[in-house]
């Protein structure tokens, strides 16, 4: 029997979740990561820091986000009651801002005038550019050339916010390459630059601090479920690229064994081929971007190109805590294909008047499938991690419509 309380105390001081996590970076960055760990340990216990973070979430982000009963969707599916955790209603339109607010506050305490970020769908880039504008920090965002093309709207939003968007052409020109380039920039400018990592991956302490900042999602959900339904949900569903919205939703429920949890990876064109981004479903453990975790890699340990209709899930790795939760069996990791996600995008838009991000549409797709197998008196919560405005060009393009 696994001691789930002990699971919630991870990572260890060295940043490990069982065999996963850790700190696999070049020596030049080690001291900056040590400093960040120390700063975070100190500030996370500092009431003044917590107060500032909570107030920003309340008055700038607009939290708490609603836990919305999707009545028409529930009727359509004909199973468990489906609730949506409305992270799409946050300022900037996704869960990403919960974390950027926290990390930008850390940056402010370090006194470093520059922040950098990597981005896939552009949501984390926008969230970083936003808080940088608010705090008067200079912001540079690294983004794969492929993603710049398919997320034009967010690129322009970042530029309007005063950020410099650097196009990354190396490798597959997607999120993993953006992260490589951000790391390279950070090595060179480590003295005056704070790296705001967007997902619950990377070298220690990032997986921990991103999880902590995103855990507001699960804590609110818990409270709201008890208030609205008188009890905890039976199942939670969240999409997983690097896994920051999912870990934020799952972490506060780890000890609540009766709550089943489902992380939905990008199944792309199907898990039988290589055109997907589902390392937890189909990959194996390895080391990339500073941590040991499940990866999509070939037999020689080279990282494979991934495919997903959603830029934000198009990543060959995943946060190390998810790798650990998979191995101990606390969370079920599954996948939804491009087609399933697109269908869910349209369904939710038409039935509830809520347009989900393509990333979140993966969670909606699997959540609908799962709800159909559950009883009507059961409760299922889908984390609606972001809104879909940014994806309108992609969706229109797939339908052959030019806007």
């Amino acid at each position, binding site marked *: 029997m696994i001691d789930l309380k002990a699971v919630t105390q991870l990572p260890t001081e*060295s940043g490990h979740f069982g065999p996963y996590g*850790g*700190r*696999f*970076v*070049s*020596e*030049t*960055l*080690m*001291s*900056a990561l*040590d400093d960040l760990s120390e700063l975070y340990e100190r500030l996370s216990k500092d009431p003044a820091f917590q107060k500032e973070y909570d107030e920003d979430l309340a008055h700038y982000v607009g939290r708490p986000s609603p836990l919305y009963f999707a009545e028409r969707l529930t009727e359509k599916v004909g199973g468990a009651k489906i609730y949506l955790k409305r992270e799409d209603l946050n300022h900037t339109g996704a869960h990403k801002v919960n974390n950027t607010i926290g990390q930008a506050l850390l940056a402010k305490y370090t006194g470093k005038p520059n922040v950098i970020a990597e981005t896939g769908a552009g949501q984390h880039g926008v969230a970083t550019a936003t808080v940088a504008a608010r705090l008067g920090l200079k912001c540079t965002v690294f983004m794969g050339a492929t993603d710049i093309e398919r997320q034009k709207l967010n690129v322009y939003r970042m530029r309007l916010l005063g950020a410099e968007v650097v196009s990354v052409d*190396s*490798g597959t020109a997607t999120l*993993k*390459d953006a992260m*490589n380039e951000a*790391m*390279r920039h950070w*090595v*060179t*400018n*480590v*003295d005056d630059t704070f790296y705001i990592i967007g997902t619950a991956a990377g070298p220690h302490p990032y997986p921990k601090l991103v999880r902590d900042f995103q855990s507001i999602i699960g804590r609110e959900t818990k409270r709201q479920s008890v208030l609205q339904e008188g009890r905890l949900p039976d199942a939670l569903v969240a999409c997983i690229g690097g896994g920051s919205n999912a870990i934020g939703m799952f972490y506060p429920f780890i000890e609540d064994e009766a709550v089943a949890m489902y992380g939905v990876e990008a199944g792309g064109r199907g898990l039988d081929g290589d055109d997907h981004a589902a390392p937890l479903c189909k990959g*194996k*453990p*390895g*080391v*990339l*971007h*500073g941590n*040991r975790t499940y*990866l999509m*890699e070939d*037999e*020689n*340990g*080279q*990282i494979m190109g991934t495919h997903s209709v959603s830029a934000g899930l198009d990543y060959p790795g995943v946060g190390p805590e998810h790798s650990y939760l998979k191995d101990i069996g606390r969370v079920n990791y599954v996948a939804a294909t491009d087609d399933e996600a697109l269908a869910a995008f349209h369904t939710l838009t038409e039935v509830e008047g809520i347009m989900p991000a393509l990333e979140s549409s993966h969670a909606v797709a699997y959540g609908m499938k799962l709800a159909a197998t559950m009883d009507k008196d059961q409760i299922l919560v889908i984390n609606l991690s972001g809104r879909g405005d940014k994806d309108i060009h992609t969706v229109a393009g797939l339908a052959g419509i030019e806007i």
Partner: protein
Amino acid sequence: MSRIDRCFEALKETGKKALIPYITGGDPKPGATVELMHTLVEAGADILEIGVPFSDPMADGPVIQLACERALAHNTSMRDVLAMVKTFRETNADTGIALMGYLNPIEVMGYEVFAKLCDDSGLDAVLIVDMPPEESADLTAALKVYNIQTIYLLAPTTPDARATTICDHGEGYLYYVSVKGVTGSAALDIDDVKSNLARIRSKTDLPLAVGFGIKDGPTAAAVAQVADAVIVGSALVNCIARNQDNVPAIKKEMSEIVSQMRTAMDAAV
């Protein structure tokens, strides 16, 4: 005593400094690497660093990223690079060779299998860019079985306490990264290098090698005056990039660069 330790002992007696060139295995094509290794030794190299191409070389600048891409276009794997070392050993039993790369190609193979293959190929040391001492216990234990040495990096940002730990773990030589940045970065500041090396020297008797920002005879000579070894990488890889389809031209140009450095270094000390 390892080949690398023997090399530094011998150099100490003559008062000369070690010259350590780096090339990526399989660049510009797998068939060229062994030939280029011999060329480097003939031109005056004391120890060789051979890179293992990786899809995500997070600590490397554009020059070595492109070298990785050229080598990976030929599917050059960890096993292939070790096979190149083995072939080189057939005609060179003395020159120390360090494998340089990222951890994942080793992870996928398994540490024991990797260590055995290193031994079988005649390799002397490994330098894993993304494996600090804190994460290295299992791999170094596997390597020690075969007396393969682990080389660690030190950086300008390494605080004193960490430097002490790294020096205690070190074997063969310590690789001092002369600038904050990726490989192929701008020029190093020799005074800064000098004072940092003095700080490290007080903690260890291991040879101190300096890499990053050394591109020609004059920079090599300047570094040779303050360090035990000079590492040159991007300048040589650039010469491969310029002559991708012409191995004889690469050999000629590379030979000139290394000889010039050798001459300049020997004259400086």
